[in-house]
């Protein structure tokens, strides 16, 4: 994949993620309650978009700042955590939009985002880990927010990450912004 098409795919994936998030929001206020099928399809699109986003980022080459690579991974995955919070009262919990952080001593688990949830996905080539933690709505403390730990992908080397470069760049502000809005809403 050339750099330009990778960038296009990248931008497309981010746009689709943003659109999906707004749809997820809108579905919460829909008459008749959350539709399980629709929520499931939305989460699948989000997962596809995220996976394609990552693979396009990898194609851009490892010289691209790895810290910024971590940022969208973390924000989108914790975003998924947020949206995947099962509400105890509602017997129609949001499906599949969940992710868990892997313990940091297992960085080589998957070639894709290592802290996302398993639900069976044809694109996955390596086994995923089961979600062990159940995120309750009650936990307002940000312990579910991913820590800004750099995680290694297989085959990549650790680069010296300058301080401050972990902050979301302009291009990533979209997903980061959405995350900030998500938390108060829940």
């Amino acid at each position, binding site marked *: 994949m050339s750099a330009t098409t990778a960038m296009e795919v990248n931008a*497309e994936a981010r746009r689709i993620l943003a659109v999906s998030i707004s749809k997820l929001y809108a579905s919460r206020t829909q008459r008749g309650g959350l539709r399980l099928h629709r929520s499931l399809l939305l989460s699948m699109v989000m997962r596809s978009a995220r996976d394609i986003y990552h693979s396009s980022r990898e194609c851009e080459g490892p010289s691209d700042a790895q810290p910024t690579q971590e940022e969208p991974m973390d924000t989108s995955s914790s975003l998924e955590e947020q949206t995947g919070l099962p509400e105890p009262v509602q017997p129609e919990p949001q499906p599949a939009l969940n992710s868990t952080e892997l313990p940091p001593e297992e960085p080589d688990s998957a070639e894709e985002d290592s802290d996302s949830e398993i639900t069976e996905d044809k694109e996955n080539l390596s086994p995923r880990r089961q979600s062990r933690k159940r995120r309750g709505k009650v936990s307002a403390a940000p312990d579910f927010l991913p820590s800004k730990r750099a995680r290694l992908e297989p085959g990549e080397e650790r680069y010296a990450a300058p301080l401050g470069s972990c902050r979301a760049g302009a291009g990533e502000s979209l997903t980061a912004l959405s995350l900030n809005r998500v938390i108060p809403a829940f």
Partner: protein
Amino acid sequence: MEEESDTRKINNSFLRDHNYATEADIISTVEFNSSGELLATGDKGGRVVVFQREQESKSQPQRRGEYNVYSTFQSHEPEFDYLKSLEIEEKINKIKWLPQQHAAYFLLSTNDKTVKLWKISERDKRPEGYNLKDEDGRIRNPLTITSLRVPVLQPMDLMVEATARRVFSNAHTYHINSISVNSDLQTFISTDDLRVNLWNLEITDRSFNIVDIKPANMEELTEVITSAEFHPQQCHTFAYSSSKGSIRLCDMRQAALCDKHCKYSPLADHRAILQASAEQEGGEGWGCEEEEVEKDFEEPEDPSTRSFFSEIISSISDVKFSHNGRYLMTRDYLTVKVWDLQMENKPLETYQVHDYLRGKLCSLYENDCIFDKFECVWNGSDSVIMTGSYNNFFRMFDRNTKRDVTLEASRENSKPRAILKPRKVCVGGKRRKDEISVDSLDFSKKILHTTWHPHENIIAVAATNNLYIFQDKVN
């Protein structure tokens, strides 16, 4: 095939707020009864309108069997589930007729949570000549009564009454997407996103769960049930479709063991445990485990076509058995497929409904059209299949000649007794005079619900809040 335009439903709403009126009048289901004499429509406002075909009269041969309004009633009302703080929509998701056994007509109608059995009966006589009250209903002065008389039935203007005979509720946690009456005429199934329940038409406080795909951990959910239907002749067989694009054919008789999450494999390894247990208050279970044999119909995916939206467009929105019971038809977003029940690994026939949309999936995702659930329908002889599309287009595929046609349901093109002109969508290059380009398609005008008369070439097509009935031209 040439068609003739006939009746149009009159929008009965007089509400001043135009938006509300339009919303509640959107037709959400259409269904002919088993003789084709009656046509029922359900709408978003919870109403059911039943049309009846006029008897053909020799004096007016050109008015062959038009459909006129026979009965209108409010089937479901909006409800509020206080426990979950959820509003339950009154929109009628499906209507299924029971085959006629007596003078009255019966149909099942369902919204997201509750199925109701309605009896539609005619009254054309009333008793006159009571002793204690006169014709106006006022009590007669007993002192003036000198003799007794027997009330006599006198003809009156035809009155059609609809009464709710059964209410089947509290059995579904998720939203009901389909109902299907068994050929034994005693039971029916109702299906929500994760479960299929079997009911007896006479018993409302008990149902049996025969399919449950809810995972122990909801976070592992990967697919939902999108539709289910009984086999038209075999009362022990039913099929259900999933959001992953697979169809499972289940036999309620045999016992076998399974693993619910198995992938496709030959029939011998491929069975399912399904429980028979009573739900709701106090019902006793049968005490045994009823298990079913399953057949999984699934086409292996072509990896080259994978995209963001692969899962959405492979989700099956409708499944229908053919009338002869040998085939199954499924509708996903872009295609209609006909499956032979004996062949599980690939469909017998695949028809492209609107493949020109494949390159527009992203915009269709943004405007929510990609979530539209189109239905599909067989004609009486199973030789032609029909399904809807956008811009008020609907498509018919002749399975024998392999010809297909695109027709449009619109007021401008549908004067009474006009012949429908085939339409064509131009996919690129030069657009001919009568063609319409993909970008000019109106995606707000979609035909999701269609039905075909069981014996004749009469179709009913719902275009938002309008109903179009087309008949074959006969010389």
